[in-house]
């Protein structure tokens, strides 16, 4: 096994969880037995770990898909009212951006309220990635501009460079989940 294959197995092991440690050992042992490049086998094992985990935790997998869809629908619903309000009140442009950056906060908070911190952070990160992916794919479908457009000079997400915009968005998710998990712990301790 080469270094990349080892990284793939480490990731697969992490995704699969302790319950499936023996199965990951079995997959890795087969990779060792392959004479030649075992990258394709390792990629398959990573996919196996993802699908098996999603199968075992269908509600979580559904949440990772449904929460971003709900946020997307909410974005559509509040877009024109927020735009109109900012025009009427003469608010600066960044207030419009802040509203959209903060939209996932209550959802992430709700995720944090329902589960332990580590789990909430993982789900929030995956939901954030799903939401961003929906945005990219939506842009692609509506305007015919593929993902490469986000790497062009001058492209912006939330009025920032794409990296900064996506990082900001992720931070909001993580902050919401952390806050939710923190209040959950406090409520349990009380």
């Amino acid at each position, binding site marked *: 096994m080469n270094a990349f294959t080892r990284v793939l197995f480490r990731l697969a092991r992490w995704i699969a969880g302790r319950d*499936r440690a*023996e*199965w990951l*050992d*079995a*997959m*890795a*042992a*087969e990779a*060792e*037995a*392959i004479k030649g490049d075992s990258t*394709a*086998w*390792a*990629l*398959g*094992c*990573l*996919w*196996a770990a993802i*699908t*098996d985990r999603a*199968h075992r935790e269908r509600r979580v997998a559904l949440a990772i898909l449904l929460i971003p869809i709900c946020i997307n629908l909410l974005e559509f619903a509040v877009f024109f009212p927020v735009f109109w309000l900012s025009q009427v009140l003469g608010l600066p442009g960044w207030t419009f951006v802040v509203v959209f950056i903060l939209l996932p906060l209550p959802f992430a908070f709700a995720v944090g309220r329902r589960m332990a911190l580590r789990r909430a952070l993982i789900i929030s990160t995956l939901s954030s990635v799903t939401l961003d992916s929906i945005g990219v794919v939506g842009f692609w479908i509506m305007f015919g501009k593929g993902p490469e457009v986000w790497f062009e000079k001058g492209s912006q997400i939330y009025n920032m460079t794409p990296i900064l915009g996506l990082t900001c968005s992720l931070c909001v998710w993580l902050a919401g989940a952390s806050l939710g998990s923190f209040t959950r712990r406090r409520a349990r301790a009380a």
Partner: protein
Amino acid sequence: MARARRLSPQALTLLSVLANRPSDWLYGLELANLSGLKSGTLYPILIRLADRTFLESRWLEPIEPGRPARHAYRITGAGLKALQQAASTSGHPSKEAFA
């Protein structure tokens, strides 16, 4: 009453491969080659079949020294029965079955 879950065509293919050599312990790579399934499809099926006790598994010591032990699989009586039921239900073991 527990609901009988339908076995997928790939799961039936895998069970058929195992049933062809019921007394042999087969490795994951051998099963992948014999069934034509990639590792990403093979292992989730193996896990579910093992959970339903349709196959048993064990670690076999390596033939070549310095190599890790390998996980091997063999069909169980319950697995053979499920395959027979699948064949009698649909007339073709690799189509539809109820375990």
